[in-house]
């Protein structure tokens, strides 16, 4: 049984999506737009060539503040928080003791002793409880700001041209994975040069009540330049082409950070953090499996999330995410396979509706924007 629409959580933009004739779906308990009438391929292409505007207000925001904030966030995450400058963001994770994922997240350093943690919508309550559980040993406050916060993501090569006329803040000097505070269309925002599409772009955080006027102002300013509202459907194909992990697919509580190919967020020499001992041990032993990118060889063979990777009729791995790639024009996917098979150019077989089909392991990310 699917959840009745009336019981789903709604972002401040719910009415705006419906006015744009979005197709709404249940996404982890949230009533979210999967696409607008233009369709996933057109929205995907808008983001790659012009710009797209996403509602990401369902994401969770947790603020950690106080003299012990740095030490708490260092303890909870594997990346080196002390290396973050004020105004800088990084990608990281909450790990369990065994090195598997509670969630992945962004850490914003708002001040010497203040951090904003941005987590996945579906994990938001679990994450907040996780932070709270570990916080008492540290001198800091932990506040769940999710209900009070709206967020939209403007993504694509024309993002800066679209956004700059709406703000006095100079946007060009904001580096990738840096942020600042300013006003956009007269609305107070955290302006972050980040995203989940592989394109240049900005994520704007504002007070929940300001989300709709902010959305409308950006959409209106961008329309003449080809900006399109963009849904979760193309958000998935865009992130997949860039091999960006999605919780519940490439990462979850059964996969550890190193096999997920996220060794770059794990700073084993930074001091202790939850999961460090397990990852140290994992690093010392040969990894049994690895995340690889593949393409199927025939146009008709389209792999999908969670399909088995097989060899001689036996399952040896699984697809985490897969779809026809609008940018690359081929059928792509990511899969966990035994390490001895994880070589670019090698072949694997994927079981699609009881048929084992050939796929070739290819380099990732599948798509990288021109600098």
């Amino acid at each position: 049984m699917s959840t009745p629409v009336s019981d789903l959580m709604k972002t401040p933009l719910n009415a705006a999506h419906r006015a744009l004739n979005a197709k709404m779906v249940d996404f982890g308990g949230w009533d979210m737009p999967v696409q607008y009438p233009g369709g996933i391929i057109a929205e995907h292409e808008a983001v790659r060539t012009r710009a797209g505007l996403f509602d990401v207000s369902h994401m969770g925001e947790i603020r950690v503040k106080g003299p012990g904030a740095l030490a708490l966030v260092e303890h909870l995450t594997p990346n080196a928080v002390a290396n973050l400058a004020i105004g800088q963001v990084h990608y990281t994770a909450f790990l369990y003791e065994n090195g598997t994922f509670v969630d992945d997240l962004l850490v914003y350093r708002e001040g010497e002793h203040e951090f904003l943690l941005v987590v996945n919508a579906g994990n938001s309550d679990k994450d907040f409880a996780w932070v709270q559980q570990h916080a008492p040993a540290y001198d800091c406050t932990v506040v769940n700001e999710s209900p009070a916060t709206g967020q939209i993501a403007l993504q694509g090569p024309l993002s800066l041209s679209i956004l700059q006329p709406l703000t006095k803040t100079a946007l060009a000097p904001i580096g990738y994975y840096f942020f600042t505070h300013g006003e956009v269309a007269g609305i107070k925002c955290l302006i972050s040069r980040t995203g989940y599409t592989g394109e240049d772009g900005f994520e704007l955080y504002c007070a929940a009540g300001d989300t709709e006027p902010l959305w409308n102002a950006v959409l209106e300013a961008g329309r003449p330049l080809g900006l399109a509202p963009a849904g979760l459907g193309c958000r998935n194909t865009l992130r997949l082409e860039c091999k960006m992990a999605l919780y519940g697919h490439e990462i979850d509580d059964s996969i550890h950070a190193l096999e997920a190919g996220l060794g770059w967020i794990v700073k084993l020499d930074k001091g202790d953090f939850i999961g460090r001992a397990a990852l140290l041990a994992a690093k010392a032993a040969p990894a049994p499996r690895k995340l690889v990118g593949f393409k199927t060889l025939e146009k008709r063979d389209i792999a999908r999330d969670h399909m088995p990777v097989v060899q001689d009729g036996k399952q040896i791995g699984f697809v985490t995410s897969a779809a026809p790639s609008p940018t690359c024009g081929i059928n792509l996917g990511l899969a966990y396979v035994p390490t001895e098979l994880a070589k670019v150019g090698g072949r694997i077989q994927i079981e699609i509706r009881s048929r084992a089909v050939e796929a070739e392991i290819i380099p990732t990310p599948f798509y990288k924007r021109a600098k």
Partner: protein
Amino acid sequence: MFPADLKYTKDHEWLKPAGDGTALVGITQYAQDALGDVVFVDLPEVGAAFAAGEEFGTVESVKTVSELNMPAAGEVLEVNAALAEHPEAVNEDPYGKGWMVKVKLTGDLAGLLDAKAYEALVSAESH
């Protein structure tokens, strides 16, 4: 949205009898809208025979895949080869250029819905 001269299945295929014992088969406006952008249609060989309700192919969109079930028993006389190059015809013109197979009917059309009954079914599904 649901032409009166077609017959429909609960699985959202349509069948258009030509009056000479043959019929065209495709998927409905409702089905194409639910699938989103169609990127591939896997169709059977000419000459293949199917029972009513039997799977005869698949239609793949960017986000999902759906089975195609034969509305009535029949033998495939022709497949819409143009869909190989232009699968988007299924979205743009589901009852016209987006047709999928032409069949010689080998059984009756019992159990198929008329436009009114199908519309009632769709309206129940989407509310």
